[in-house]
């Protein structure tokens, strides 16, 4: 009889544990840079994707990205710190931010931080880090222009510089041609 009771108690414990684990939220945050090149003074597009892979909703979600300091980056549009009231299980949400780099060189893109609680006001605040884009090279603006700009001004200058070598022989020929043509017509 006591054997049966202990078995019942074990089963009860197992069932209770399952119920306690169900409904836990788990957030994954990915931070991605959507640029072909990182150039000083040009836009850098950063996208944060938040996925709830848990069974329960996440409440009081706060995402903070301290990786773009004000003296190194200009915030063009978007918010680097944001919050969401509730992220349902299986839902995903995204945020896009555009920054501009003020300096060139190697830059380590660090992870953003997320903090959230499970549903039901359990009071436990869970934290996580986003994916880390790693180190990138921010190219100086003048190096980018040297390779990619249209160079229209340079080619116009080149055209002006070639004008003497084309123009002087042509003018000489033209002056002698018109002189001989006028002599020829005068003779007739």
């Amino acid at each position, binding site marked *: 009889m006591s054997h049966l009771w202990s078995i019942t108690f074990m089963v009860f414990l197992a069932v209770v544990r399952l119920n306690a684990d169900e409904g836990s939220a788990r957030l994954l945050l990915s931070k991605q840079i959507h640029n072909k090149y*990182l150039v000083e003074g040009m*836009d850098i597009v950063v996208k944060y994707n938040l996925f709830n892979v848990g069974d329960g909703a996440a409440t009081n979600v706060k995402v903070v990205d301290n990786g773009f300091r004000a003296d190194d980056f200009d915030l063009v549009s978007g918010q680097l710190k944001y919050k969401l009231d509730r992220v349902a299980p299986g839902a995903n949400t995204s945020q*896009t*931010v*555009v920054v501009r780099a003020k300096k060139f060189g190697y830059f380590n893109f660090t992870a953003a931080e997320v903090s959230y609680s499970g549903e039901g006001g359990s009071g436990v605040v869970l934290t996580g880090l986003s994916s880390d884009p790693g180190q990138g090279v921010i190219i100086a603006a003048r190096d980018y222009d040297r390779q990619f700009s249209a160079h229209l001004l340079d080619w116009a200058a080149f055209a002006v510089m070639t004008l003497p070598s084309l123009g002087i022989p042509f003018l000489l020929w033209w002056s002698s041609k018109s002189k001989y043509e006028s002599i020829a017509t005068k003779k007739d």
Partner: protein
Amino acid sequence: MRSFVIAAALVAVASATCTDPKVQASSYTPADSQVLNAIPYIAEFSLKCGNGETPSLFADIDGDLVPVPQSIDGAKYQVSWIKELKKATTGDISVALYDTEGYTAVKRSRERGEASTTAPLVTIVVSYPGSYGGPMFNSEHFALAMSALVFYFAFSSRSSLLA
């Protein structure tokens, strides 16, 4: 006493909807997309409700209903998405915003497969006039073409003069 508390709670929940919503929005799309892989469409707006609420909103982006992030102080909301360069469309894009009740109503009607009749709380417009994607043709190709033209002109004139 308990029924009074419950009634008060119900009233509080019912008044969580936003009355008389007023929106002030500013949007950003890049003017120069030479170095980008995808175009971001970002709209930041502040919502003023008649009853002073700051409700959580859901935006309809490309047919998906997503929650709208708020700034930490709750003053501004931000709706943003990105589109690959090739698929980015120019023009004005309207984004419908729903509060929680509107969201559940729209989701239910979409699951049933019928068109939703719920009106959005507010609608904001993000305009993308297009962006500079780099020079159309390389200047060195143009210079090559011009020099070939000059050479052809000179050579043909020379041939006709000597003939």
